[in-house]
C-alpha cells in the first residue's frame, strides 16, 4: 500500500511551515489521517523535506492549536478526534473566504468556466469531516 505523501513546493511563495500544515490539514479533513494515526517525528519529516526541524515543529504546533493533533515528546504527533467544533474565528474565516475568491478569479482568468469553478469548490469541500 502506498503511504500517504506530503509535498513541499520549493517555488511556492507560501512559507514552508504553512505548506506543511496545509498539506497535513488537507489529509485530515479528507479523513485520510484517522484519529490515533501517528505522524512521523519532527526530525524525520524535516530531513526528508530538506527543511529545518523548527519548520516542521511550527507546522505541527499550528495543527495542534487547531485541535487536530496531540504533540508527543520525541515521537512526532498523534491525530486526535476533534469532538467539539471550535467557535469560528470570524476574522480568519473572512481572510480565507478572500483567498477563495482570489483563487476562483485566477481560475476564471485561466479560462475555467464558472460552472467548473463552482464544481471544483464543491468537490474540495465534500470530503471534509
Amino acid at each position, binding site marked *: 500500500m*502506498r*503511504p500517504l505523501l506530503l509535498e513541499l513546493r520549493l517555488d511556492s511563495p507560501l512559507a514552508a511551515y504553512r505548506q506543511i500544515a496545509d498539506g497535513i490539514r488537507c489529509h485530515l479533513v479528507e479523513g485520510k489521517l484517522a484519529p490515533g494515526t501517528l505522524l*512521523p517525528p519532527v526530525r524525520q*519529516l524535516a530531513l*526528508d523535506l*530538506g527543511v529545518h526541524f523548527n519548520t516542521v515543529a511550527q507546522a505541527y504546533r499550528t495543527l495542534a492549536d487547531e485541535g487536530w493533533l496531540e504533540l508527543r515528546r520525541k515521537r512526532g504527533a498523534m491525530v486526535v478526534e476533534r469532538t467539539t467544533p471550535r467557535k469560528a474565528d470570524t476574522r480568519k474565516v473572512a481572510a480565507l473566504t478572500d483567498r477563495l475568491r482570489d483563487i476562483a478569479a485566477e481560475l476564471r482568468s485561466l479560462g475555467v468556466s464558472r460552472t467548473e469553478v463552482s464544481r471544483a469548490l464543491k468537490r474540495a469541500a465534500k470530503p471534509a469531516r
Partner: protein
Amino acid sequence: MTPDTLHPFALVLTAAMFWFTPTLSRPGVFFGVTVSPAFRETDLARACVRHYRVVVFLGAGVAFGVMIAASSPRAKALALAAHTLASTAMWVATRHRVLPHAQSPVGVRAAALVERDTRVPGGMLLLVGPFVIVGIAALVVWANWEVIPERFPSMSRSGNGRMTPKSVNGVFGPFVFIGALLGAFTMQTVFLMNRTRTIAASGPAFEAEARFKRRTAQQSLAATYLMAAGPSWFAVQRVLGDGTPGLARGVWIGVIVCATLAVTIWMIRVGQGGQRAVPAADGQAGDATPDGAWKAGLIYFNPGDSAVFVERRFGVGWTLNFGSPWAWVLLGLALGFPMIVLRLMR
C-alpha cells in the same frame, strides 16, 4: 600483507572505484551535476565518461609501473596518492564540462507521512559491544600492571625497535585512542540511520534505498567491531606479550582486505542509494540537494539542511554536511581527539 602487495592492491581497488564512479551515481546525477536522466545517453555524456576513464586507466598504469620499479614503500605510497589526485582532478574537470547542462532540481519534495524504522541494526546492545571489548582489554592490562616491563615496543613503530617507557599515558593511551575512533564510528552508524534523508518517498526506489541504508549501517557496525578487536589485542600484546606482530595481526589484516573487497564489489553492483537496479522514482531528478551547496561536487555545505550525512555525488555512500555543527563534532572526535591522545602519549 606487506607494502609490496598492499599498495598495488589499494591501487587496483581505487582505480576500479574511479572507473565505475560515473555509472554508480543516481540516474539524475552525472559527475556531481543534477541532469535529466536521459542526459547519460547523449554523445557528450559518453565522450565525458570516455575521456575521464582514459585518464584513470593511464594514471593507474603509470602508478603501477612506478610501484614495480621503486623499492621504497614511500615511493609506492606517493604513486598511489598521485593516481588518486589525478583521477579526482579529472573528475572535477569533467564536472565543469557537464555544468552547462545542469537541470534545476525538481521543484517538489515529497515525504511519506509514516514513521520509518530508524533503529540501528542490533540495537544499543550491539553498539556498546566494541567499547566493552576495549574496556576488557584495558582491564586485563590494568590487572597485570606489575608484569609490564619498564620499556615496551612503541605503538606507532611496533616491531621497528622503537620503545616507550612504562607510564599510565603510554600503557592506556592506545585504548583511549581506539575508544575515540570507535566513538566517531558509532556516531556515524547512528547518524546514518536517523540523520540522513530518504530521497524516494515510496515504491521500489524507496525500498531499495532503505535496504541500502540498513546494509551500510551494518557494515559500519562490523567495521567498529574489527577496529575494537584487532587494535585492542595488539595493545595488550604490546605491553604484556613480546610485542612482535604475530599470526593474529595477519588474520586481522586479511579480514579487513576481504571485507573491503566485498564492500567495494557490493557498492559497484547496487550503485548509489541502491538505485542501480531500480527504475527511477516518478519525477525524481537529482538527490534532493541543491547543486549550489556542492563545492567542486565533492564537499557539501548547507546550513539550512538538517541532514548530518547526505548521499555523496562522487562514488557511493554518504558524506558530511559541513554546514551542520554535528559534522564538526564528528570530525573532531575522529581526527582531533586521537591527535590529542597521541600527543599526550609522547
